[in-house]
């Protein structure tokens, strides 16, 4: 009897999980499907789900009209660069907060996180002016720095959570063994925290890859990443849903594939500390 109830509950939970999963995935699925429709089918009412004339035409047009590889390369440089730079800065910061906390460490962490609650548009004007002054508009360097700063609080927080799980005695042992601070972080802390650092890096690549606000506002043509590539298809010349969808799929495909292959790391990163 008890077993029957248990099995039943498990079945309900599984069904619920699938339902929620499909609900979340549906927009992406719909985008993918739409990208294979003709423009007419894309806006047909009632909408067609699977039974339409599958076509690759949209991809061909998108490929022809814009230089996908250039946008992709910009995205790779900007997302990768900002994440690497952020991680290099965040590791020592998280080290000091995790292993030599002061009375104000908690406050600093919260203050850092609070900057994420600020509406980005609130600082658009000053940052835009700064970019003009520095000559960083439409440059990859400028975007790398801005995205790094935007995501830095999250990188520090995640690494801080990981580092706190590492026993302090091991770092003290390294100190006793003659390691300088740099050597302690490089040879002992970082290798021990590799899983944590990996999931932090993954999450931040995704965040930077998908970041639309700054990438759209601070770039024009030269440094524009895939977000701008998508945006260029939501044009005032009329709604071309199918082509917009094709562009979207091309933009998210690389990150989706990366995410798929590193699911384990990502889940661990996102739930770390929450579950044992």
């Amino acid at each position, binding site marked *: 009897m008890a077993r029957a109830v248990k099995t039943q509950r498990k079945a309900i939970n599984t069904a619920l999980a699938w339902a929620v999963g499909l609900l979340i995935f549906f927009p992406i699925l719909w985008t993918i499907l739409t990208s294979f429709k003709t423009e007419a089918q894309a806006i047909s009412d009632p909408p067609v789900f699977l039974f339409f004339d599958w076509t690759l035409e949209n991809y061909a047009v998108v490929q022809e009209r814009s230089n996908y590889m250039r946008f992709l390369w910009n995205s790779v440089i900007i997302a990768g660069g900002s994440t690497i730079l952020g991680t290099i800065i965040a590791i020592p910061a998280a080290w000091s907060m995790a292993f030599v906390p002061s009375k104000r460490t908690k406050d600093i962490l919260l203050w850092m996180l609070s900057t994420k609650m600020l509406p980005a548009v609130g600082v658009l004007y000053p940052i835009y002016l700064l970019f003009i002054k520095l000559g960083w508009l439409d440059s990859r360097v400028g975007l790398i720095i801005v995205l790094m700063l935007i995501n830095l609080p999250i990188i520090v927080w995640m690494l801080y959570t990981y580092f706190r799980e590492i*026993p302090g005695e091991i770092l*003290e*042992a390294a100190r006793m*063994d003659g*390691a*300088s601070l740099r050597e302690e972080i490089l040879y002992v802390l970082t290798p*021990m925290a590799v899983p944590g650092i990996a999931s932090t890096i993954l999450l931040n690549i995704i965040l930077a890859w998908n970041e639309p606000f700054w990438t759209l506002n601070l770039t024009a043509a030269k440094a524009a990443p895939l977000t701008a590539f998508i945006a260029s298809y939501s044009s005032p010349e009329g709604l071309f849903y199918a082509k917009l969808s094709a562009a979207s799929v091309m933009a998210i495909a690389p990150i989706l594939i990366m995410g798929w292959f590193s699911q384990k790391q990502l889940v661990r990163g996102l739930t770390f500390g929450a579950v044992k």
Partner: protein
Amino acid sequence: MGRIQLKQVKKSFGDVTVIPPLDLTIEDGEFTVFVGPSGCGKSTLLRLIAGLEDTTDGVIEIDGKDATMLPPAKRSLAMVFQSYALYPHMSVRKNIAFPMKMAGMDKAEQDKRIASAAKALNLTDYLDRRPGQLSGGQRQRVAIGRAIVREPAAFLFDEPLSNLDAALRVGMRMEISELHKKLDTTMIYVTHDQVEAMTMADKIVVLHAGVIEQVGSPLELYRNPRNKFVAGFIGSPRMNFIEGPEAAKHDAQTIGIRPEHIEVSTTEGLWQGRVGVAEHLGSDTFIHVHGVPGCDPMTVRVGGEIPVHHGDTVFLNPNLDHLHRFDAKGLRIQ
């Protein structure tokens, strides 16, 4: 060389003073044990010497040089931690090599020292394993190996045996003692176990609430404890303390007599009592006697096996040559 001198060393955490100003000298080559109950500041004192904690005040000298402000890496001390603190991502070989790598020692010399340390510590077959694949005793040996290869001025041990089971502990205790005889290097060893202190130390420092109660050789502390705390802490089973009229007869507030300095008789004696629990160990018999005025229960240790049981009436004769007398403040009366 490894002479360590603490001059008026003080440690506070915020408003709480854990170690009031304290002076201590540890001679070169000496095996010194810091012993005391938990929270007495013995580990903090060791960490101050190591440089893992900053002193609030005072001076720490190592071989005559002021080391108070030196980082741990520059003090040429090696430490063995209670949790072993091995680097989990490195093989045993790399763990042992780590301090030499940090010192920039050449590879051939590193390999030579790893081989000799591994041989001395029975680790030769495990050099390519990770710490996670070793038993507790083996991990402790790796930690010791990592400490000895760099030939430090002194070794610091922070309760290194408390994570091991009882049998292994006795074995490792002897290994560490032998290591000390062989290397002849200063060792400072922290423990709460007075048996470890008595068996290993050249010099014992008894700490209580951050204060040094007494410094001396194991037998000095056993024979002439400076106060009631040391008298009660050193020796197992614990010294019996007797208060009241019995103590007054000896012009003292409290008198103390160790369990091994009392004779048991079934016919006559100074004190009379009833046997509560008798523990028969074969080599010894520990008898807990109730009803002795001013001390309940009184513990008696008799060599070998004697036929006493719960409820028996026994007579006790203390050996008055081994009587300890203490005044109202708990200090020894000479």
